[in-house]
């Protein structure tokens, strides 16, 4: 049975619970109905793990999605949080509305590459511009899984697949798209790299505005041949993390210093927590937009599978900040929502 409303674990059992007394089970959702081995499943289980480790209060979270196998995943985590499985490609607008109604909520949005890059391109770009505070997970497999494997906009040019044939069009790089649209937290990861996914997700939840995680998530049914850049085989063999990542909850002030190859540094996140980066191979500075674009383009040209925090810039206020929202609008009293009778009479004076 899908999405049973779970209840907090009975305390009498001896089960490991977190700081707010919830067990990992309490962060589960319904059993997955996705294919065994689907990348989306491993991502969902990382969300569960992160919820547990960060002591998230389920009722403070909302989970949203579009349509697709990927977009089904919110049903498979955080069963005690409100969920919204929207329309194909339209999760961004729904999230925007929901978070304007109640900006105290923290939102985890899940989308697919088709849901975001094909039908959803417009809403995705404009969400970035508005910088709505939410985590935007793309479970990117380069195909439309749920409709049986057609190419999506993120499929590599020239890629050949059994059902879909050959892809004639250049791939959409969602990280680049997010960056030039103004997104301040852009990361790429790999469903096979559980630890990195977790650390990035934690950092993303601490970001001030929209945080995009473009997670390559193999479709074992339609796009998992080892020579496909979005397969497990390819990912496991070729993933090239730009740095080693660690998330440090609520540490004291630490500032950003420029970094040399292999050097270690921490970046302060909006809510006071930090993320630590230890560069691997090359020096990479995720705080420079052009460097990020350059790196992504190079990776695309050379077929490198780079992962990590690709761009970070906390300067732009979130939409709720811009709108100067205070009390969540959904919590306003009737009195706050309806001006007085005298207010009406006065107002009408100027129309006499």
């Amino acid at each position, binding site marked *: 049975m899908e999405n049973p*409303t779970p*209840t907090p674990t009975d305390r009498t059992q001896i089960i490991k619970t977190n700081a707010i007394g919830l067990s990992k089970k309490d962060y589960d959702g319904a059993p997955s109905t996705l294919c065994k081995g689907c990348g989306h499943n491993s991502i969902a289980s990382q969300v569960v793990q992160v919820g547990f480790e960060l002591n998230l209060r389920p009722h403070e979270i909302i989970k949203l999605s579009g349509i697709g196998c990927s977009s089904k995943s919110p049903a498979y985590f955080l069963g005690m949080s409100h969920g919204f499985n929207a329309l194909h490609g339209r999760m961004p607008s729904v999230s*925007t509305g929901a978070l304007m109604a109640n900006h105290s909520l923290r939102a985890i949005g899940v989308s697919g590459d088709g849901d975001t890059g094909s039908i959803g391109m*417009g*809403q995705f770009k404009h969400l970035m511009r508005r910088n709505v505070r939410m985590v935007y997970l793309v479970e990117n497999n380069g195909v439309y899984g749920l409709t049986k494997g057609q190419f999506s906009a993120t499929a590599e040019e020239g890629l050949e697949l059994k059902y879909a044939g050959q892809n004639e069009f250049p791939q959409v790089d969602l990280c680049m798209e997010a960056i030039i649209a103004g997104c301040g937290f852009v990361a790429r990861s790999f469903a096979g790299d559980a630890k990195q996914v977790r650390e990035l997700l934690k950092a993303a939840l601490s970001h001030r505005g929209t945080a995009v995680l473009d997670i390559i998530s193999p479709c074992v049914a339609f796009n998992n041949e080892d020579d496909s850049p979005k397969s497990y085989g390819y990912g496991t063999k070729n993933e090239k993390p730009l740095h080693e990542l660690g998330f440090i909850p609520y540490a004291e002030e630490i500032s950003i210093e420029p970094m040399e190859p292999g050097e270690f540094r921490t970046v302060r996140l909006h809510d006071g927590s930090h993320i630590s980066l230890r560069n691997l191979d090359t020096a990479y500075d995720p705080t420079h937009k052009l460097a990020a674009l350059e790196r992504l383009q190079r990776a695309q040209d050379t077929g490198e599978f780079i992962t990590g925090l690709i761009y970070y810039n906390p300067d732009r206020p979130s939409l709720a900040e811009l709108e100067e929202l205070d009390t969540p609008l*959904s919590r306003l009293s009737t009195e706050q929502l309806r001006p007085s009778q005298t207010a009406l009479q006065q107002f009408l004076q100027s*129309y006499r």
Partner: protein
Amino acid sequence: MNVLERQQEAGHATRSPVINDFSLVVATANGTGSQTANLTLLRSFFKLGIPVHGKNIFPSNIQGLPTWYHIRVSHEGYIARRPSEILVAFNPATAHEDVQELPSGGVCIYNADLKNLPQRDDLVFYRVPVGELIAGIDVPVKRKPYLANMAYVGAVAWMLEVPLEVVEEALSAQFGYRQKLVESNMQVVRRAYTWATENLNKQDPFRIEPMNKTEGLIVMTGNEAGALGAVFGGASVAAWYPITPSTSFMDALREFLPKLRKDENGKPTYTVIQAEDELAAAGMIMGAGWAGARAITSTSGPGISLMAEFVSYGYFTEIPAVIWDIQRVGPSTGLPTRTSQGDISFTYTLGHGDTKHPILLPSSIEECFEFGWKSFDLAEQLQTPVFVLSDLDLGMNNWMGKPFEYPNQPMQRGKVLSAGQVQALGGFARYKDVDGDGIPYRTLPGTDHPLAAYFTRGSGHNEQAQYSERAEDWLNNMARIARKFETARNLVPAPATELNPSARVGIIAYGTTRYAIEEARDHLAQRLPTSFLRLRALPINQEVRDFVAAHERVYIIELNRDGQMHSILQTELPEFASKLRSIAYLDGMPLTAHWVEDRLLKEEGDSR
């Protein structure tokens, strides 16, 4: 039949004065600022206590194309469109045709610059030397061209004998009492007035005389009234994409909210987001309504088409939201600056699959205000998207009305469970018909209880909101939603009915066609007495059935090609289908009483 014809009928040898009963049209080009001049005239008549209404017939561009402003002045209080007897010809591009259209006995006030107007000796011509009159007035260059319009204000004032102090008062209101502007403009008005007094002699019968019929009334556009209603309805999340004629609705909302809806700390209790398109606007109000905001958008035809998928979603997932459709002429881009009632059937069942949506049908600024707040109550009570179908004529033109009544009931937030209630109930099932009215209970995100959460999805679900492909779950859920629509019948505003005991013929209409119809009914009082039912919402209730039952023939009069409301009523009242007759017409202009009379008489002639 216009006043002049009536005069002739009355067989006057010399023309006796026509007082407070005429229609005047000002012909100018778009973007020449004539709006200020026109509203000054309108307000002058209003301030003199004479019932008046103005209609702006403007083109779909920003500058240069023909524009007509119709002012109807009627001591009897009729405000429907009527062919004009008085023309202010200030647009070279249309002057020739405009003059031709005047009825015999009409008046033409024209800008002296206009060359070769048609010669008609059945008209009275007044030539106004605009150039001279505005010469050397000191205003910023940019405003110079606008001054020309003040010349016709002065001329009209002279002709109709409008006291200049009244004009000045009206003008000041228009310019927000910015003295310098008022002065420079009044200067032109006075010059024109004096010039006319000295150089023209009045040959036409039209005059105005003060009355007290506008005592205590207000003047406002329907879009302003609707937006104000929304403000008092607690609109908290508005999302929109610009489109004529709905843009001024959101402009008003954005103007009013900061004035009326800051909290004790001066923080906004609302937010208005300009979306990237109507798809996004619809998604935003869905998300907002779901999360507990009073969510609203306004749009017009093309936007409605783009919202179809989300409306189908909102119907099935049961999310409250309010959608204003300020109707313009469709299909497609159609006539974006002309009025229509052409989206009725489309919105009533908008979206793929079996859907039905409540629709409110305002006909006046009072109803725009009332439905402005009430639509939120209905949306949250019924947990479904609710439409308000206004039109360009009502939305963008200025109408007289009584000062709005403050909402006569506390806000209805519908069946929302708090954490405490969830606790007390030991859980809840999102889509269960607990009360037998088809309306389930919901919780808002953020409700602090482990059993409060549920999963919203556009795919099949059972009472617990769990994914389901089971036949019986689908069947039961959709049957319940249908019951909800039955509940709606008696929740939505009831029709306004005028039963005429001696009438065998009934008229059903909605929205702004009422004014032409009401005037026509008065004229026909003897020849063809009628009863009148004005729908204020869909779905219909028993009252409508009874009305139809009580008459031999019922004409549904509407402003579209296909008789859309007529079709809806035929399917809702099959037993009466054959006595329901359609009178549908759409050319972009509001109906005239004259046309309604003719059509009714013709139809009745045929059916005798």
